[in-house]
């Protein structure tokens, strides 16, 4: 059973229970077509943001701890094994050394989720049993999404049956690139239906969509079709999460919330490896969407090496001395 949600996230919590899921809506082509994204202006906003917001000292430590609770700790490698996944799950359960947490006066925290391929779902579910940490499975022919459609839908069902509580699907980029919004909507809606109670994150693979306008429109269509989260990238494209893409997507989330009242989560994935970057992302979310989106039920980092840098920064905060990677338990 899921425990009651705590705002602090320090108590184990499943994100699903904290707000009603996005039920989606009929495809509104007028809305989709009216969406604009001015690349230069979006880039300017992103370029100036780090200079406009600065988080220092205890505030920085607290923000970094929050960032950890929003990480989908991820391994998506061909050489993943049971042992490797168990190790990762152990890290997810205790992402920061106890003495550091004690020095900061923090209770236990854990990462937002563990994210694996389908075959590793049972291992992860078992390793995380009782922690409340959900297992996310990448699905639907990840990362290219070009396997037969029925197999992609079946893959979702099997991952849910194996215990995944979150499914990260990939969309068919060609639907976006050809402007076939109806096809994208139908695909997304079917994936959502296949997920049943599991939450669905729609990976747009923004690095392959060509323009921010496409990113904005694809975001909107996926939300209309019932996505619980929209996510930038698989981590396998040549360009993954960027601030301009993030700003474009979260503005789409904001618009969708304003017009429908439904909150959709956001997950930047790939390329965020520094604590400093995480702070910028959090301030971007805070500025554009507000504090409500700074909780793991509405925000995740898809990242594998980010945690290590945050651990080093936290130790530096506690001791005043710069840290080393080997001082922190590996995942």
């Amino acid at each position, binding site marked *: 059973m899921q425990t009651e949600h705590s705002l*602090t996230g320090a108590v184990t919590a499943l994100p699903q229970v904290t707000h009603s899921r996005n039920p989606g809506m009929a495809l509104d082509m007028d809305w989709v077509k009216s969406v604009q994204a001015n690349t230069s*202006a979006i880039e300017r906003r992103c370029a100036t943001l780090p200079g406009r917001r600065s988080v220092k000292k205890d505030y920085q430590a607290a923000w970094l701890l929050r960032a950890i609770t929003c990480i989908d700790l991820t391994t998506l490698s061909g050489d993943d094994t049971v042992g490797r996944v168990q190790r990762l799950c152990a890290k997810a359960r205790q992402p920061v050394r106890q003495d550091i947490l004690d020095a900061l006066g923090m209770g236990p925290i854990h990462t937002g989720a563990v994210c694996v391929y389908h075959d590793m779902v049972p291992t992860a579910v078992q390793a995380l049993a009782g922690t409340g940490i959900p297992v996310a499975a990448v699905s639907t022919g990840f990362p290219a999404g070009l396997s037969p459609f029925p197999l992609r839908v079946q893959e979702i069902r099997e991952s849910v049956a194996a215990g995944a509580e979150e499914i990260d699907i990939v969309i068919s980029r060609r639907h976006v690139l050809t402007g076939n919004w109806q096809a994208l909507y139908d695909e997304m809606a079917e994936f959502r239906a296949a997920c049943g109670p599991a939450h669905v994150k729609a990976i747009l693979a923004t690095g392959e969509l060509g323009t921010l306008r496409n990113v904005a429109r694809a975001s909107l269509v996926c939300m209309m079709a019932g996505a619980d989260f929209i996510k930038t990238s698989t981590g396998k494209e040549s360009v993954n999460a960027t601030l301009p893409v993030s700003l474009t997507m979260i503005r789409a989330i904001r618009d969708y919330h304003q017009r429908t009242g439904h909150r959709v989560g956001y997950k930047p994935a790939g390329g965020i490896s520094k604590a400093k970057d995480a702070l910028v992302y959090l301030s971007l979310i805070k500025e554009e969407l507000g504090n409500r989106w*700074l909780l793991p039920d509405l925000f995740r980092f898809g990242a594998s090496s980010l945690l290590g840098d945050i651990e080093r920064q936290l130790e530096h905060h506690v001791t005043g001395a710069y840290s080393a990677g080997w001082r922190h338990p590996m995942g």
Partner: protein
Amino acid sequence: MTVSEIFDTMDYGPAPESAAEALAWLVDGGDRFGHFIDGKFTDPADGFDSRNPATGEVLATLTQATQADVDAAVSAARRAQGKWAKLPGHARAKYLYALARLVQKHARLFAVLETLDNGKPIRESRDIDVPLVARHFYYHAGLAQLIDSELPGHVPHGVCGQIIPWNFPLLMLAWKIAPALAAGNTMVLKPAEYTSLTALLFADICREAGLPKGVVNIVTGDGAVGEMIVAHPGIDKIAFTGSTEVGRRIRAATAGSGKALTLELGGKSPYIVFDDADLDSAVEGLVDAIWFNQGQVCCAGSRLLVQEGVAERFYTKLRARMETLRIGNPLDKSIDIGALVDPVQLATVSRLVDEGAEGGQVYRAPGPLPDQGCYYPPTLITGLSPAATLMQEEIFGPVLVGTTFRTPAEAVEIANNTRYGLAATVWTENVNLALDIAPKLVAGVVWVNATNLFDAAAGFGGVRESGFGREGGWEGLHAYLKPDHATKVLKPAPAHKKPDEPQVTDPLDRTAKLYIGGKQARPDGGYSRAVHGPRGAMLGHVGLGNRKDIRNAVEAAHAAKGWAKSTAHLRAQILYYIAENLSARSDEFATRIRLMTGQNAGLARAEVEAAIARLFTYAAWADKFDGAAHSVPIRGVALAMNEPVGVIGALCPDELPLLGLVSVMAPAIAMGNTCVLVPSQPHPLAATDFYQVLDTSDLPGGVVNIVTGDHAELAPTLASHLNIDAVWSFSSTDLSRVIEEASAGNLKRTWVNNARTRDWLGTAGEGREFLRAATEVKNIWVPYGE
């Protein structure tokens, strides 16, 4: 708060920039400062306190300059000027480069000191003001390097008096000093009394750079010191940035003094959002437009015009964005809105809003204001009509007024419904719309899908009552140069006297009329005067135009403004055609000139030939006075477009009745202006013959209007006419003071001869100097990228 509490609240917390180094610099100076004159600081004397507007604390005591101080500064500048101007451009470039480097080396000190003194957020002084300052000196090091080869035949004005405002203290100093130095001028600069500290720090780095003493002089004090500079007979050029009200006074005060003048004044710049814009980005743009520097920005996008269909959505987004603006300690790195510069400014903004918001919906950002200091909340007022005071008057605070429009044409109409013309912003994803609207906006700078972009390579400056002159780019350099023409005192050219016995050479009366709107018109007053030859021969009568004739001519000139939209090719064709038709009648014109002026036949013929050649010159220029695509540091272009000034009123030279008229008319109409010409007063009949040439040359009616009459009588009417954009005077009657004084009404551009001759037959009689006077440079910034 504990870490675990912050983990819950996710507040930003304080992120203060240390003021220690800047305060130490003040302490090193004894917290009291004198002026910087002739390479040294003077002893501090009686003066005034400079305060931090965020706290009210006194930062330093500054000295109020006396007349003796100003005299000393001007003398020092004068002594230094000749040698400075004679240095090779490369030598001046090295000093400018050194200044750029030193600004960068002391970047944080400058930024913190600026924020302490002015109240602007450290984010802005650190990321915008100071980097732009360094960039300005680098860029002008380059101009100094190139000036000898690229602008031969130009000389500096000499000693410049420069008066700068408090909103961008160091940046405005750079905009004034860098081009002046590059061009070989020396200067006396007065910073605003609220914000003199970074200017004094700059004086320090001038010494570090080894700048020759006397080249840069800085005197501190209030408006009285500014008046001393403006009135000082030892100053050759005044450059002022500040309010339109003060600019107008400076225009009047310098009238007839022969001082060159550039003014960068106020604005009420429109910020136009079309329904196909990226609305979120346009909202964010407003943060940079009106909540940049607490709205104390001359080019602030302070008049929001939103297309009606998206207005409510846009306002909703805007109000939501206002909620996340952070107001407070300007030294905090996470602050968006700092303090207004002074309690006086805070009171002014408060009063304007309190008195003017009636009838509108006022929304103020809800965040708490600091307990002390000059803070005003970001404010949006919607629902005002263009007639409302707040839609017309510059507030110079973080207050945005908004209204709606229906069509692109209406957007342009509302946007241009103002006395100002500094900047404008256009948001649309439609390139056709953006590039159609930008040229139609009356402004010196237009930003497309962006706002408040600045760079040293692009000129900045206004039209209408936002002033004249440009700062930045090649176009800005010309504000500190003049063509090197040899001139002499111009003696009045009297009309030939009537003999005791009337002499009639031709019994058939031919009455010359005025030429208005392409038609011959009798003078409104019903008077005419006889024109005599040098030996008294009566050559004909000419109408005596009066103020109503000028009024009619200006109306006709406005009615013909479609001329500006005609192609340059067409304008060239018509100028060639005028030349062709003049050529066909060259004997007749030569005779006319000879009879009126008494010149010998050869000279008279030479004048006609020169006039034909001049028409060819400007026919040639019509499609070749190209604008530029400035190399600004964005992915995009800044298009510097040469636009016609508008309606030009000109008093033509008396001495060469045909060539003089053609010399002012041809550049004006080649660039797309329409004009009202008052021809040679003593010898007007060449002009009245000439309108027959115009009539047969396909020139649309109203493009050229000719009103004969008395220069001294017509000049004040032209100069005070609020719907004329520029007045030129080459009259031998010295009308320079009268014209410049009266021009202050609408701050029209003036170009007067200050009773000096011009060699109309030589190179001084034509060329780029005329084309620049006939155009305004508009910089259109178009960032791109998909």
